[in-house]
């Protein structure tokens, strides 16, 4: 994703770059890196959410008054199944909220990038490459 260097001797597209264009290009590259960071985070949270769902169904098989080892920080605590279920539900809830939040952010960044892409391609055509 950059302005291309001309191989020596090739026709140069005669476009001038204004400060506004430069800021658009910078903005695009900023959004691009923000996007990949958020997407990584999203994937991470999604995995986490899946684990929580899995464990949520598994824990139903345990008797309510049985003790399970539940990890908080670096230690495992023996807690009643019912309390663990409660804590898992809380965790799962906050993960889902975070996921939705991330989804919104990713969507709005993508929209903004599409907007910039349109403007930049219109002006620079083949002289610029904005694909990942």
């Amino acid at each position, binding site marked *: 994703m950059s302005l291309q260097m001309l191989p020596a001797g090739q026709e140069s597209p005669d476009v001038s770059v204004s400060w506004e264009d430069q800021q658009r290009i910078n903005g695009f590259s900023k959004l691009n890196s923000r996007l990949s960071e958020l997407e990584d985070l999203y994937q991470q949270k999604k995995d986490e959410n899946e684990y929580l769902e899995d464990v949520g169904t598994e824990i139903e098989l345990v008797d309510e008054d049985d003790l399970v080892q539940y990890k908080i920080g670096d230690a495992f*605590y023996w807690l009643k199944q019912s309390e663990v279920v409660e804590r898992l539900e809380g965790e799962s809830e906050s993960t889902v909220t975070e996921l939705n939040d991330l989804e919104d952010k990713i969507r709005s960044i993508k929209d903004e990038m599409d907007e910039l892409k349109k403007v930049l391609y219109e002006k620079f055509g083949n002289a610029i490459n904005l694909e990942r």
Partner: protein
Amino acid sequence: MASSTAPRMPGETGYVNPRGIPQAPFIEVVEDYVRSRDQVESVLQSFQEMLSKYKYMEMSTLRRAASLREKIPDIQKTLDSVLFLDSKRNSDDSTLSTTFELNDTLYAKANITPTDTVYLWLGANVMLEYPIGEATDLLTSKLNAAKESLKTCQEDLEFLRENITTVEVNTARVYNWDVQQRREEKQAAAVK
């Protein structure tokens, strides 16, 4: 540097971000920047220098961000544990059974009686006893501070990346201008 200069806005020439990172110059018209072809090389070289300075700053900021990313979950974990102990302080089951990590890959059992104080490792071989409430406050403020400085790291990284892009675009344009000039000269020579 004269301190009397008014602070400049982002985007203006000479802007310096809150952490003192200068903004790269932008070339509006190549001819204003390089008047003849002999200057191309030195201009490109100065861009190269700028670029490596920005990259260096980027590297060290990335490292700082990475260490914060490690630190934040650590503080969070400690805070979670303290909050958990706090929530168990007033419960009826008198002791709490735990399996805790005695060493890497080695776990042992321990019973914890309800407690009003915890010990926090402050670093440099110092551990201090805190009432649970104070420990929570301390950890929360540490956590927020770490999150805050991660945010500034990310801001700096974005600013650095913007400037790296500017310098790269500058480089490409000066280079292209040079190619263009050379071609025109050749054509002019051929006509003669």
